[in-house]
């Protein structure tokens, strides 16, 4: 530990041949099954790591490496276990012209609540939308009303209201683009972003 403190500046390390703490970088397969990439730069040297568990070390075992899943767990288990829950998006749909959820979406609301309760400090953005039936101003109002309704439903189920923001986007962002005046159930929705 003391060595780390004394040797931290790289210039000193080079000048006095003092040993820096060993370092390790490893690329992990993503939750979606795809593996990304990290470019490691040390001085003039650039290393691209873009395969699952591809790693680069400094120190006694300096150089490229490929770690096993078990080695990753041993070294990074505590950090990986503490990574926050992945952000998630839910969609709820409404009966035409109202802030009443469709029967199907009532079930989805319950599933969403279970997911929210698993999060220690959820932060929730509710965005209401409408289809293109009715006037613009009316749809702005209705979209916000839908978002506020979902917000109230969540709050009544014990999700802290101050953790929920609600906004209305009217008919501006249809999922399915239509001509004005078209009754499109998939556009009558509220999108809920949970973090």
């Amino acid at each position: 530990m003391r060595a780390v403190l004394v040797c931290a500046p790289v210039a000193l390390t080079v000048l006095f041949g003092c040993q820096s703490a060993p370092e390790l970088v490893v690329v992990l397969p993503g939750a979606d099954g795809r593996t990304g990439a990290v470019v490691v730069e040390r001085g003039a040297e650039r290393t691209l790591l873009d395969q699952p568990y591809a790693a680069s070390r400094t120190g006694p075992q300096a150089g490229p490496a490929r770690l096993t899943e078990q080695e990753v767990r041993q070294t990074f288990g505590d950090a990986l276990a503490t990574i926050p829950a992945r952000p998630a998006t839910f969609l709820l749909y409404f009966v035409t012209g109202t802030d009443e959820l469709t029967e199907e979406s009532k079930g989805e609301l319950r599933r969403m609540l279970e997911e929210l309760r698993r999060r220690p400090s959820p932060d929730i953005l509710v965005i209401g939308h409408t289809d293109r039936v009715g006037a613009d101003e009316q749809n702005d109002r209705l979209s916000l009303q839908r978002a506020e309704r979902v917000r109230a439903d969540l709050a009544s189920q014990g999700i802290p209201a101050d953790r929920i923001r609600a906004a209305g986007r009217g008919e501006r962002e249809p999922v399915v683009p239509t001509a004005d005046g078209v009754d499109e159930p998939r556009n009558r929705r509220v999108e809920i972003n949970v973090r």
Partner: protein
Amino acid sequence: MRWFIAIGAVLLAAAAQASDVGEIKTVRGAVHIERGGTLLAASPGMNVRQSDVLVTGADGAVGVTFLDNSLLSLGPGSRLGIDHYSFDSTTHAGRFDSSLSKGTLAVVSGKMVKQSPDAMRVRTPTGVMGVRGTEFAVQVGESGR
């Protein structure tokens, strides 16, 4: 005069919100935030700001979700500085620089890296990691156990 005070108050409120760049979601054991000269005990729901330093004790671990949905966590005996964080939620442009001086860090990159592959960098005492996405981990120093 009253107007000036009102405008000042609005600006202050906006500034306070603008400087929150993430939120602590998970805490285990002893975890602190060094902010300016003060040491704050970390708890879930607490905001993280640019220039904060996250510090975990020998039994500590912490997870943070940032504005662009970058997720980041530290294992025991770690120290991470949030050197720079900016994110435009409309264009998804941004920059996220942090530095790990010891311990273990796990990262899931967020929207800004998807938008621009040069947006996120993690520094260590001897190197710089350019994050092209998505999940990776970094250790500085020997394992704490």
